[in-house]
């Protein structure tokens, strides 16, 4: 059996807009491995929701193939969906019925016992509001109910479209923990979100699409190129410190009064080298590339950075280029977000060393 739970090949969907044909999804190849939490990212209108609708049988592709659990989806939507839980865009329920009643009816539709409704309500922390009408629910409560519905079938594949929307910080933490827990129990999660920091925390792999096409796909750490992290160094005399570190074999660049040293594998050696020349660091922190920066540059939503001394081609830690399909000028190899110059306008995420 294939180890890919979701697989699309050459997926294409065209809509008519005022008589003009617009390809919402255009030759999309998507692959989601079993047991992974896979982020599905793209700007508004990039074709994420259309793709999800096609995966769920709500829309029919004009061409291309979808395989769920290794089997073609065409002609066997009911069988495939019996193993899939999903929330598409926003959770939609019958407004006049309570959250509990809505879930009970959905459970009965799927041939599940009514008691499943109470179990999933408990699981998403909505048991206390289960008897309120859905129309009275806050946005966050609706999200939780949507997730509860998606869990009703005890799915092998969970497709969540913007599940963090409307959740308060505690809700986001709960959702994150829930997704991690599900993934740990073997559930494959396809997560569409624009909260990229959340995606980076939860997802093990991502696919980024733009204009209906795949722009990049792979494991998060591979795409971001963890090896290209930098170390921000604060010293009283940056000029001398630059000379010392360059002589020690480091690639160094100025960033205002600070220095940016390529790599963050052994920060202690940087302090030792500087201290040997009576240069004592006042600040030492890791500067890592983050998914948001990667996403924005890849989807062409930030001006291409000018080349800097630390720029290099986008590479995986093993030296190979990340699996991507460059479609925009921003994602040509030399301008890959992983090779973003340190003086770019958008700061990268920093971790204290």
């Amino acid at each position, binding site marked *: 059996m294939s180890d890919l739970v979701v697989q699309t090949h050459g997926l294409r969907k065209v809509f008519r807009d005022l008589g003009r044909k617009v390809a919402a999804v255009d030759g999309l190849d998507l692959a989601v491995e079993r047991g992974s939490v896979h982020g599905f990212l793209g700007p508004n209108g990039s074709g994420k*929701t259309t793709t999800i609708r096609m995966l769920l049988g*709500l829309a029919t592709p004009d061409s291309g193939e979808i395989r769920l659990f290794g089997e073609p989806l065409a002609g066997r939507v009911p069988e495939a969906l019996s193993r899939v839980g999903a929330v598409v*865009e926003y959770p939609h329920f*019958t407004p006049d019925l309570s959250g509990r*009643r*809505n879930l009970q009816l959905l459970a009965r*539709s799927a041939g599940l016992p009514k008691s499943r409704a109470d179990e999933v309500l408990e699981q998403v922390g909505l048991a206390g509001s289960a008897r309120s009408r859905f129309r009275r629910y806050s946005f966050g409560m609706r999200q939780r109910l949507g997730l509860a519905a998606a869990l009703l079938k005890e799915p092998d594949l969970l497709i969540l479209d913007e599940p963090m929307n409307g959740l308060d910080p505690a809700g986001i933490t709960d959702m994150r923990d829930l997704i991690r827990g599900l993934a740990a129990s073997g559930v494959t999660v396809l997560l569409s979100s624009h909260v990229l920091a959340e995606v980076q925390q939860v997802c093990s792999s991502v696919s980024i699409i733009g204009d209906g096409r795949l722009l990049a796909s792979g494991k998060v750490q591979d795409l971001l190129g963890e090896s290209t992290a930098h170390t921000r160094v604060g010293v009283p005399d940056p000029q001398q410190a630059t000379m010392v570190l360059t002589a020690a074999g480091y690639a160094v660049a100025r960033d205002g009064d600070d220095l940016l040293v390529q790599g963050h594998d052994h920060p202690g050696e940087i302090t030792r080298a500087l201290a040997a020349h009576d240069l004592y660091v006042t600040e030492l922190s890791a500067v890592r590339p983050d998914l948001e920066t990667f996403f924005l540059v890849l989807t062409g939503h930030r001006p291409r950075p000018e080349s800097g001394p630390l720029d290099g081609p986008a590479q995986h830690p093993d030296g190979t280029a990340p699996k991507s399909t460059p479609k925009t000028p921003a994602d040509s190899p030399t301008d890959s977000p992983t090779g973003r110059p340190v003086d770019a306008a958008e700061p990268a995420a920093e971790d204290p060393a």
Partner: protein
Amino acid sequence: MIAQLRVELARYRGRRIIALLLLLAALLAALVAAKSAWDTRPITAQEVATAKKDAALAAQRSDIKADLDNCLTDPKAYLGTNATAQDCRDNLTAGPRSFLPREPLDLHGTLKGNGLGVALAVAGLLVIAASTFAGADWSSGSLVTQLLFEPRRGRLWAAKGLAVTLASGLVALVTIGGFWLAMYLVAVDRDVPHGSGIMSDVGWHLLRAVLFSMGAALGAFALTMLFRHSVATLALLFVLSVGGELLTYLLPVDNVGRWTLGNNVYGWLETRMEFFDPTAHCARLGDCDRLAHIGHLEGGVYLLGLLLLTVAVSVLVFRRRDVAAG
């Protein structure tokens, strides 16, 4: 399928607006029954005495006496061939009965009047309820969620349609049946004719009215599933019921009245429906009858044909067309 049908019945029952519409149908039937009973209440002795007095006064009017005298002089010249003096008295003098303030209860008359009105009103409310039922699924987006749990679209459509049809039939039976039960009890109480003949007509009318309500509700549901919006359905039905009749009569076709929706609805519901058809072709002046008749079978086949066509298109489109989230 049975499980899904139960789910849809629960959804139908759970919609507050539908509950209000059904309550309104019951109240309307009860109100019309009460009004029918009140408007036909027995004549009191005082009212009879007043009627007699009014009749006597009318008989003393000089213009009426002059007319009567003229007629009695030559009844044939005044009223036509075979007329007699008694015909003159019957036709030109008003008896006390003409001065009574109201007619007594007549179930035949109720069948053509308030009974028909109740059947049409109940069916109309059930059409709105059915359209609201489907329209709310689309407008709230909950249909997307439902399709994730029952992806077999044909089955989902069928379960919803069956739920609407059954619920509408039950409501129609209770409300229209309740109306006729009340009328029957009033007739028994007042000892007006309520024999097997009229009750048979009422029974068949009730059956046809219930079937009509079920079909109308299913048709409205099918149209809303097609248009994905209850407003579009109700607007179309309104335009059809008003403009459609007018437009049909403008068509250069003979006997076109046979094919209008309204005439066929009345043809199905009424015990015997006749209508004036201005488009009936007459070869010679006076050599044709412009009063046309639509029987139950003709009306029923027409309405069933329309219903089947609507359902077929609706199911086909629902099975094939993409469903967007709300």
